[in-house]
């Protein structure tokens, strides 16, 4: 179980992104300072509700956490590690942009406990980076990785994207090659999703921008699976690849549908069967903590039936599949009993396979995973 902290600040909004964040302006230092105070208030609030269940991971995401001065972030991290019931050596991940990391900064963060960095690389072609609104340049990627290693952080993830406007299959192959040359412990390869209310979605729908179609994306995805496997990476989740022993424990808890504390404006959490989303409005978020309590955009009590559905829905994203015995231990019932007709249909369609212990997606099912997941929604 873990903690997610949302840092809703960015130097610039990427055109495809629909996460909540505000672009930093002149009052940023004060704003960030106040925000970090609210985060601590919120953490203390959940500390009481959470109890003593051990936390194995902390994930600082965004937005762009690295726009906040390293000293301040380091302060927050070490404080959280001290105040919340973390295990002895938790995985502590921070997201960062290649342009905003310095060796000195990383050393401060590392000293505070950050031991894993997820770099928003996306592509190694400056024209593609520009077309999606990223502000870093390809040259900065290698420099950042070098700085991280120098500061002793070797557990590095690179986020890559395919299906970008104007991206050719060859561009994607080059991106994979450049990424592999940096020898990261972990790689996430995401197909572009045109989210509603993003500039990119608007441009594409208006015909001002063209992105590769589904077939094009499928081809790029196929290439990533093949090449990364050939380079020794384990494909363990739809979009995630890791060297042995380097899987992201924090993200695994999402795919295992485990509880987690979410902190920050726009963050979601799942505590005691309650799935909540904090108000995605920095100022109202801070105001509510100033007044001493949470302000949710949504807060739903998830029934056990629904949680079982969702456990299957997210669990089937893992290539290892869902283990029947663990499911039984958790819910006191076999998933066969719950979903037999759906599972049989998926088996007949060749989308999943059953080895007597685990139900998992086939290669075909991997590409059509929505159809697998949807089968478990009652």
């Amino acid at each position, binding site marked *: 179980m873990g903690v997610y902290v949302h840092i809703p600040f960015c130097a610039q909004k990427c055109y495809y992104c629909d996460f909540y964040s505000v672009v930093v302006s002149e009052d940023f230092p004060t704003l960030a300072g106040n925000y970090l105070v609210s985060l601590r208030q919120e953490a203390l609030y959940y500390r009481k509700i959470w109890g003593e269940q051990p936390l194995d991971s902390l994930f600082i995401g965004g937005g762009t956490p690295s726009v906040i001065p390293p000293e301040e972030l380091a302060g927050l991290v070490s404080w959280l590690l001290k105040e919340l019931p973390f295990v002895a050596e938790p995985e502590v991940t921070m997201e960062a942009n290649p342009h905003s990391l310095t060796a000195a900064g990383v050393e401060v963060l590392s000293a505070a406990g950050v031991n894993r960095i997820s770099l928003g690389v996306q592509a190694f072609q400056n024209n593609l980076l520009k077309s999606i609104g990223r502000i870093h340049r390809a040259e900065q990627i290698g420099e950042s990785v070098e700085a991280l290693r120098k500061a002793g952080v070797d557990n590095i993830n690179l986020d890559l994207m395919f299906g970008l406007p104007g991206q050719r299959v060859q561009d994607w192959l080059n991106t994979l090659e450049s990424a592999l040359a940096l020898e990261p412990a972990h790689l996430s390869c995401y197909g572009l999703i045109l989210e509603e209310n993003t500039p990119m979605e608007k441009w594409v729908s208006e015909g001002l921008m063209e992105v590769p179609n589904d077939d094009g994306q499928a081809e790029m995805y196929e290439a990533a699976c093949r090449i990364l496997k050939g380079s020794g990476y384990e494909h363990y989740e739809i979009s995630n690849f890791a060297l042995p022993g380097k899987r992201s424990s924090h993200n695994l808890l999402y795919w295992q549908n485990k509880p987690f504390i979410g902190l920050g404006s726009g963050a979601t959490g799942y505590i005691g069967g309650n799935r909540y989303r904090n108000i995605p409005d920095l100022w109202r978020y801070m105001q509510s903590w100033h007044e001493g309590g949470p302000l949710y955009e949504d807060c739903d009590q998830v029934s056990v039936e629904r949680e079982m559905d969702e456990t299957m829905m997210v669990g089937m994203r893992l290539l290892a599949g869902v283990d029947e015995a663990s499911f039984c231990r958790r819910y006191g019932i076999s998933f066969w009993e719950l979903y037999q007709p759906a599972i049989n249909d998926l088996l007949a369609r060749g989308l999943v396979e059953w080895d007597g212990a685990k139900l998992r997606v086939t290669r075909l099912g991997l590409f059509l995973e*929505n159809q697998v997941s949807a089968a478990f929604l009652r």
Partner: protein
Amino acid sequence: MGQRNIRNFCIIAHIDHGKSTLADRILEHTGAVSKRDMSEQLLDSMDLERERGITIKLKAVRLAYEAKDGQEYILNLIDTPGHVDFSYEVSRSLAACEGALLVIDASQGIEAQTLANLYLALDHDLEIIPVINKIDLPNADPERVIRELEDNIGIPGEDAVLVSARTGQGIEDILETIVERIPPPQGDPEAPTRAMIFDSHYDQYRGAVAYARVVDGTIKVGEIIQMMSSGRQFEVTDLGVLAPNLVRVGSLGPGDVGCIIASMKDVRDTRVGDTITVASRPATQPLSGYRPAKPMVYCGLYPVVNEEYTALRDALDKLQLNDAALTYEAESSAALGFGYRCGFLGLLHLEIVQERLEREFDLNLITTAPSVVYQVVLTDGSVKEVDNPSALPPVTNIDHIKEPFVKASIMVPDEFVGAVMDVCQDRRGIFVTMEYITPERARLEYELPLAEILMDFFDRLKSRTKGYASLDYEFLGYRESEVVKLDILLNGNPVDALSCIVHQDKALSRGRGLAEKLKEVIPRQQFEVPIQAAIGNKIIARETVRALRKDVLAKCYGGDISRKRKLLEKQKEGKKRMKSLGSVEVPQEAFMAILEVD
């Protein structure tokens, strides 16, 4: 008040020429409604009046008017439906009148519907009062309209009344002209009672309410009335006139227009055009002109999920209470399961019913392609009526097939005559005649297969004429035609609900078009789906829906779990609206695709 002080009239107009606004002004002017009470366009509104649970449709309004001759008159304004699908209903409304206001937009001039309605009115020997409306508009050209009237209809220009329904200018002149020129009703008060039903509607508490015009004799509350077409008898519980609030009356005499409530179960007891008489002293001859509503267009209506079959039947039952023209009978399709074959007056009627079923009864329906009724002459000389392609007998048993033709009248500005001819030609039209209403406006007459009109003919006509064409048509009769059955196969299996009957010359292009259209609307699925069009055993077109290669969300982290669930649920909801044919998921639009294919 005597019969000679009654005037029964209706307003006929092309759509948008201002009929409703004019009716409102007349109501207002005669004090039937005060300006403050007026909801916009009173005659158009339904369920306007609720009184002791009776819903009243303003099918006829009784107006009191003191004319310049110092006498009081009763003016009955009778509403007419505005669409060609309901031309029979229009004709019955006209038959209830002695005169008609022919409303023409001062800037648009005479349109096809204006003429069609005018001819209908002349057929009923109505006194025509031309009303040139919207004279306040900057582009009004009443002189031109007067010329059109004189040159083409032969109505003297000085007879026209110039008005602006918007400003109220000229309304008084209309009322005076009605009193002066429209003759009073001619019925015999002593003769056996005869009243003509020109409209009806169903009220959930009181049953069917008939709107009728008394021609001879009287109807009184408490009397037993008899429907002359069916012989069925009912006791009159209430009589009323609409002024426009319901005013109860004890009797209705010759020339009177009112509503009759007589515990009639549904509108099939009050057939439009039927004659009501009094059982104790029945008339021997009904009024002329009654014909039972006969569906011209048929289609299959199927619930998307089989469980809704009973709900669909209940809904059709309910709609039929208020719609005597709607027919339905159970049928089944190999592809779609159990449903109903429904008959309609025309496409608009079909669309109205379909929409009401989906909206008011919350049903998810698949509508199969509309079909006309073909007369199939078999080799043994017998004739079989076929309104469903799958009911077509084997080719070897067919001697020939006849299809219904209509006479279509199309009016357009001169510059679009060529375009209209192209469209009609393309739709197997036979040119009959062309005349110029004015030097700039032509009226073309074509004979067209009704089946071709069902295929978005009017939309095509509109788009080719920048929206200027106006269309009216009437049934002509059956003609021999070289039609064949076109089948569609998905994954190699014929889908009965996608079959259609088409003219031989069009089969190839229709088959290709349909296959292409289906390729567009059938979503990609896990496996490739071949689409084939065939006549008999001969494949004439083929398309393929390629297999779906990717249907997966790249990201799904903590915050995305609820989102993903919602997205998948939405996808699932969409799937529910699709029909599973074998292993192929087919969306509802596919079954209507044939309408959009040339």
